[in-house]
């Protein structure tokens, strides 16, 4: 008998015989909890996102779409970045004012190559205001998961208010589970040493978020 059969047989015996199919799922779970917490205007939701991102040590900037290229150029220059990773579908105008050499992530590029790049610029799929979270879903403007992980500096552009939701339940509704998803709430951090929070162990130590409005 395979271990699969052994385990499923044990489950059946533990529950006192073959279980009926779970037709009761909807009635078993009382979903009396909230879809979001508190009532906010759209602007207040964006403000809350900015506040919660900053609370977890992300650096938050705001711009309208016309100012975006200048701001990105300035942020890269302020870091002294000489190279910047570019996902395949990043809108070209975002980096139109930036000086650093663009590095394109190729299928055969190694992790060691990525390790030599200083900054990465991406979009995002959705941002959650109540938790200060950005979700990347590997769409063309975000690229493969590894490119936002290995460089030390990550700039994320969030379109407000379109890409902002209030709470976790609303974010899950918008996401496609078949895509690889990365939820980011502030830069990499550890509290493993005497519970003192330290930013940046393995992921980017600096997370900059640009909330961009207008089209």
């Amino acid at each position, binding site marked *: 008998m*395979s*271990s699969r059969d*052994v*385990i*499923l*047989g*044990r*489950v*059946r015996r*533990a*529950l006192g015989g073959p*279980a009926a199919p*779970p037709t*009761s*799922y909807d009635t078993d*779970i*009382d*979903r*009396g*909890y*909230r879809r979001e*917490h508190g009532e906010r205007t759209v602007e207040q939701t964006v403000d809350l996102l900015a506040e919660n991102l900053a609370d*977890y040590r992300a650096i938050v900037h705001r711009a309208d779409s016309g100012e975006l290229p200048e701001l990105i150029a300035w942020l890269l220059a302020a870091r002294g970045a000489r190279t910047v990773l570019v996902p395949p579908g990043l809108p070209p105008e975002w980096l139109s004012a930036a000086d650093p050499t663009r590095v394109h992530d190729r*299928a055969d590029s*190694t*992790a*060691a190559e990525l390790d030599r790049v200083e900054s990465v610029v991406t979009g995002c799929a959705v941002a*959650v205001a*109540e*938790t*200060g979270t950005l979700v990347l879903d*590997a769409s063309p403007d975000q690229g*493969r*998961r*590894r490119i936002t*992980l290995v460089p030390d500096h990550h700039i994320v552009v969030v379109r407000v208010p379109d890409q902002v939701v209030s709470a*976790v*339940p609303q974010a*899950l509704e918008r996401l496609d*589970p*078949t*895509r*690889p*998803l*990365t*939820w980011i*709430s502030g830069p*990499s*951090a*550890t*509290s*493993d*040493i*005497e*519970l*003192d929070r330290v930013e*940046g*162990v*393995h*992921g980017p130590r600096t997370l900059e978020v640009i909330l961009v409005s207008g089209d």
Partner: protein
Amino acid sequence: MSGTFVGMPAFPKAAHDAVRNTTLRANLRHATHTIRDKRARAVAELDDWAQLREAGKQIKDHTLRHLEHYLVQLEESVTAAGGTVHWAADADEANRIVTRLVRDTGESEVVKVKSMATQEIGLNEHLEAEGIHAYETDLAELIVQLGDDRPSHILVPAIHRNRGEIRDIFEKEMGRWGRPAPDGLSDTPAELAEAARLHLREKFLRAKVGVSGANFMVAETGTLVVVESEGNGRMCLTLPETLISVVGIEKIVPTWRDLEVFLQTLPRSSTAERMNPYTSMWTGTSDGDGPQTFHLVLIDNGRTDTLADEVGRQALRCIRCSACLNVCPVYERAGGHAYGSVYPGPIGAILSPQLRGTTSDIDASLPYASSLCGACYEVCPVAIDIPEVLVHLRERVVQGGEVTRRGAKVTLKPAKGHAAERAAMRAARWAFTHPAALATGQRLASRTRRFHPRTLPGPGRAWTATRDLPAIPAEPFRDWWQRTDGGKDAGK
């Protein structure tokens, strides 16, 4: 490297030694108090916490009731998404499967995301014996591994170490496993984290095989979820060519939507954050993004035995947040090692004896490693009634009875060492059912009370070694009641 728990003394002995370690107690007190205060604030931000907790409990209970259905559904979803599912009835089988999968890649080292399941089965030790080196990449697990130590907390396994101890471990041991610690390393957490970053990065960049656990598996979609902070998880889950995830069968949730409950309750309960810095979700394999080969090893290892116990099965709801450890007065003083298992604290006291059975000294002692104060139940985000299970397991230890071991019903004998307790209880039952004898005994006890010893002789000595015997009143209560008509003639 990291030690196993074989031969651990029973909890009373281990705790007795641990509470005399003043460094340990200071480290633990600082840590548990900091995190419990923060947790209370994070939870208070959500005014529907009680409803979220109830929904989490119901989702897990529903899943356990229909576990067979959801396991089969999960297998189908993961397979359809390009993964391969393996089933392991016990730790040995899980270790053999993982070893074979690593061998098939031709590699002799793997990078690991912190995982309770792989600790439970002793995977690192098994791989080491087979010539495969497993690198722990979570900072705390690295500290534990380099220090040839054991984890003492579910969430922050090196909580028993302070910064000075960590600096010494890094200086002494890092060079033996790879890039040595930088010269003149100080004991500031930032510098220590930087040393770990440099040491581990060379391992991440060359790793071909990653091993992880998972916080959740979604039956409907085949999605696995890992919740973390440092990014070592993202490294292990995305850079290697092959990913092997070892997950307990109880980690299933039925639908994608169910994550909305646990992604709200888990971070706030564990690290007291609104959301942990990184969460990774993957469904099988994705073209060109992340590992191109994905294996899921589903482990039983005592879980179905736990499921067979109608009172004890609620322990399988556990989402490993560790909130119960941080509020527990016993854990705070005794520390995680005293529990002699990878699951310490209140949850460990009910989970380990169920997963492993109560036949060893350490497992028979764990249901007693509690004051039954109930604080653990209050903070549990899936409402596991830990005190109820503790009492249930105490009864099993003392009285024995029918339990399920490795899928078969067996009858446990009462544990040794509880003979005196059982004799006392039998005597009490007789006395309480013979009122005349009870009254005589009570009067006799009152009259001779000046001559009673302060400690009990014989097997009772263990009990009075740590407690005062209650003083016996000059007059039995029932005599007083009759004499004074229930206090109406009080003072007479």
